[in-house]
């Protein structure tokens, strides 16, 4: 007898049913629980709430990734940063990240470098001013 035949016979077996008394017994013994559900339970267990919570988390992460790029949008990155951003972009594509996320990561790499260059430039300007002040 094959496995399929055994399964077929098992499916076709007529199994006994519970006695009708059991139904009456269960319903008689079941206690009535009233007012056990609060609005917070409904919110907590609702699918909409969970989806909304997940969407908020994803939104916060996305804003966190995009913010540096937006804050230093006018900054100019160096050639090394451009190469790094290209590597980030390639690796992201290779491992199958969504293109939007890959672009955001590459943008962030550029933004970090732009900020570093801007800070260096600011430092240099301050030093120049300081030097000129000393001369006078």
């Amino acid at each position, binding site marked *: *007898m*094959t*496995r399929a035949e*055994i*399964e077929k*016979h*098992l*499916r*076709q*077996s*007529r*199994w*006994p*049913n*519970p*006695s009708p008394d*059991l*139904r009456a*017994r*269960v*319903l008689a*013994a*079941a*206690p*009535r*629980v*009233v*007012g*056990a*559900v*609060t609005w917070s*339970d*409904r919110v*907590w*267990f*609702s699918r909409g709430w969970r989806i909304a919570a997940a969407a908020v988390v994803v939104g916060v992460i996305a804003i966190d990734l995009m913010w540096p790029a937006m804050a230093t949008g006018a900054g100019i990155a160096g050639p090394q940063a451009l190469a790094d951003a290209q590597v980030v972009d390639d690796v992201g594509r290779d491992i199958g990240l969504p293109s939007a996320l890959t672009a955001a990561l590459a943008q962030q790499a550029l933004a970090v470098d732009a900020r570093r260059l801007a800070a260096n430039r600011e430092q240099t300007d301050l030093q120049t001013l300081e030097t000129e002040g000393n001369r006078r």
Partner: protein
Amino acid sequence: MPHAREARRDRERLADLATGNLEALVELYDRHAASLYRHGLVLCRQSADAEDLVQTVFIKLATTGADLLGVRDAASYLHRILHTGWLDRQRRDATGARVIGEVGYTSARFAMPHVAREDAIDIARALDALPVAEREVVMLHVTEGFSFREIGRMTGVSLFTAAGRYRQGMTRLRKSFGV
């Protein structure tokens, strides 16, 4: 296995029951009691014990309250309660040796499926001789149509353990027929 519409209806009924609506319990009983009883019969071998287990499941269901709102699959949830109830009963009632004997490998006769054909009688006897863990998986998978993932969740084992028990059970059944 319940279809999507039935599963949704079950969830609605569970939500009603959570607020104390006992009519929801009646509907859930009518839909799931027979399947739970078969599961209980496979575990206990005795009709009275199986009925006690089913009763325990529905009493527990009626007293659970708000947590029922979080149940996604009522059938799996009910069978899991039954399995847990059976384990609790084993721990409570039996001495350690007896527990090992019943949970492990026993070949006591149990009056399982009422059958129409000689083949089916042989299969019932062969099923009777399986260890209870294998018997449970075979019955839940073949007769009730649960997936191994669902059975794993119900019985507290991994998907792979459930599938392994099924494979071993089927091998034993085939061997008992000399295949």
